[in-house]
């Protein structure tokens, strides 16, 4: 009994394993027509190895979410979302890119000649609209970004899920066995890992007036 309790206690002490820490985010904020626009370097989310994924001839989706967060707080003062759809044409050998954000919800289309151009396009996120200059926090703040490559929606997962499990004990449901290693009657209902990549970024702290002066690193 003591051994069992010790094992349980040790396991509990491990605690939840959190997501990895955010990567440093090089960012520039500048005013434009009374609003704050940010330029971000997201190149760490798009290593050279992503050429194989983005060149698969099927639409790849990159979702970028940026927030302005006062230092010492978790509540964002401003939010921005951008979705980039990338389609490599296997016959034309070009990348068709569609960028959707609140300013262009229907999307702005680009055609990029090669992966180098695509990578540069994705890495340098420009024109990130963070709202009116006056809406920025009056205290030091930082930018946080989350980049998701090929996110799969819950709705898409639900559409393909079916009950096609093999009961481990065959067809007989009565007379159960309670064992150390439990039966896995619904093994095939396992939630799949669709292979989405998630990258978290966090910038340095900006002073309250930084946007007005076009500060950034």
């Amino acid at each position: 009994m003591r051994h069992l309790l010790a094992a349980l206690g040790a396991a509990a002490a491990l605690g939840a394993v959190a997501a990895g820490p955010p990567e440093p985010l090089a960012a520039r904020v500048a005013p434009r027509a009374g609003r704050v626009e940010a330029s971000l370097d997201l190149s760490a989310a798009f290593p050279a190895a992503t050429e194989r994924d983005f060149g698969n001839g099927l639409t790849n989706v990159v979702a970028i979410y940026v927030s302005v967060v006062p230092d010492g707080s978790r509540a964002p003062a401003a939010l921005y979302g951008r979705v980039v759809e990338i389609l490599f044409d296997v016959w034309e050998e070009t990348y068709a890119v569609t960028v959707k954000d609140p300013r262009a919800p229907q999307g702005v289309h680009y055609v990029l000649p090669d992966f180098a151009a695509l990578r540069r396009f994705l890495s340098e996120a420009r024109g990130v609209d963070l709202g009116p200059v006056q809406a920025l926090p009056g205290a030091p703040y930082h930018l946080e970004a989350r980049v998701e490559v090929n996110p799969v929606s819950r709705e898409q997962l639900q559409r393909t899920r079916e009950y096609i499990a093999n009961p481990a004990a065959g067809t007989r449901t009565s007379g159960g066995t309670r064992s150390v290693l439990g039966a896995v009657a619904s093994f095939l209902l396992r939630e799949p890992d669709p292979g989405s990549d998630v990258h978290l970024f966090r910038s340095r702290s900006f002073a309250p007036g930084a946007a007005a002066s076009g500060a950034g690193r």
Partner: protein
Amino acid sequence: MTALVPALLALALGQAAAAPAAPEPPPIAAPAVDAPEPDLSPLPRRYTIERVVVSGLHHAREPEVRRHLLVTEGDLLDEERVLLSRLRLLQLGWFSKVETRVERGSERGLVVLVVEVVERNTLLVTDLVLGSTGPQPIYGGLGLSQQNFLGRGFGLSGAFVYGGSPAGRPQDPGRFAVRGSFFAPDLPLARRGARGERGLVLGATVLFVRGEELACGDPDCDAFSDDFGAAPRLRYQRASFEGTIGIRPGAFERLLASYRYEALRELSAGGTPAAPENLPALRPGRSRLSALTGTYEIDTRDDFFLPREGLRGLAQVTFGSRVLGGDYEYSRYLLQLETAFGLLDLPLRLQATLGAAQGGAPFFERFYPADLAYFAVGPALARSLELNFSTDSRYDAFVAMGGLEYAVPLWQRQAFFRRGYLALGARGVYSSQVLGGARTRFSRTPVSAELALRLDTPVGVFNASLGYAVDNLL
């Protein structure tokens, strides 16, 4: 896709904000002057799938994999259907990775859809039994299940439990149970290539049990005070076959019809004869059980290991009759429900079972309350492969169980112990030999609790349970 934004944004902010401050990044480059110009006239692409190539298969059969694809040769390339096909393959449980890509076809306008898979282990340990009781100082067992038998998605399972000769009776034959099962969860009805239809469900189970039930009628029976050698008992043998056929009326449902035949035999036990009222129900000598069972199953849980939403339900009715060639005239009803939802961001499961057996059901078709409890206060002990190693041989005609289990997730990672959580549970079990009847001293404490560490591994779910330890090892 825009629907993703608000939900994921909240998640993103929560995760990033909780993280520590990042180190200083390198300076950002000045905006490039060669930013691309928008293309104002994008042309939609209309490619036709010339071929579908499935690669990476070693065990799974290609036709079985293709049956789950929602695209085929000659179709216009529909990316949504390609994505859904990929997710469908992942959810089969046969593959750890499924990637899709498009390559040039034999001429312009044609493409080849390549589906690359990485197969996963589908051999699971389903039962690992180890225990000790007074009448059986040591017993154990093992169960294995191949979830992709013949590479066609069939399930083939086998399990055994062995106890050996009972305490105080070294000359007696050993107690054991062996079970084998085959299950075809989705046997295609239509021709190859037809997509979207649901197939037949077929299954078969064989079970052989040689066991005994101590039949003293009192947990403080004098015969239980020494080595159990003189205790009255019922020794029996069961040889059972059950065949099942079914359909899938919905994506999450199964409707099954089963026929079961059992050859039963009461074996000579020697020693002190048991009083008839203390003997578990079984006809003397040889007898036969012949029964039909109808089962409805539904499972909409989002995850078998740590569900946060959904329902799992089973409703089952069994009729045994002389009309079917058996010696037992009875009916049995079973309803099991389990719902899962999130409470304070942690999964909470509610469980309920109702059962009733009417008429002259043999003892093993009645309900053994300890099977439904986390542990039993007193001599009862949950059975192993329908073998009872305890001194409590009370089988009841009515049973009700209600319980809840709260889960505290501990970790999730790419390792052998992929996921783990701490389970805290409580259950109440009521059972009675007659409807509305009183409980007996055998099962007078209706409540049990659980503290368990549950681990999800590639070979099965490991359950380090305090309740199991209390019942079986202490």
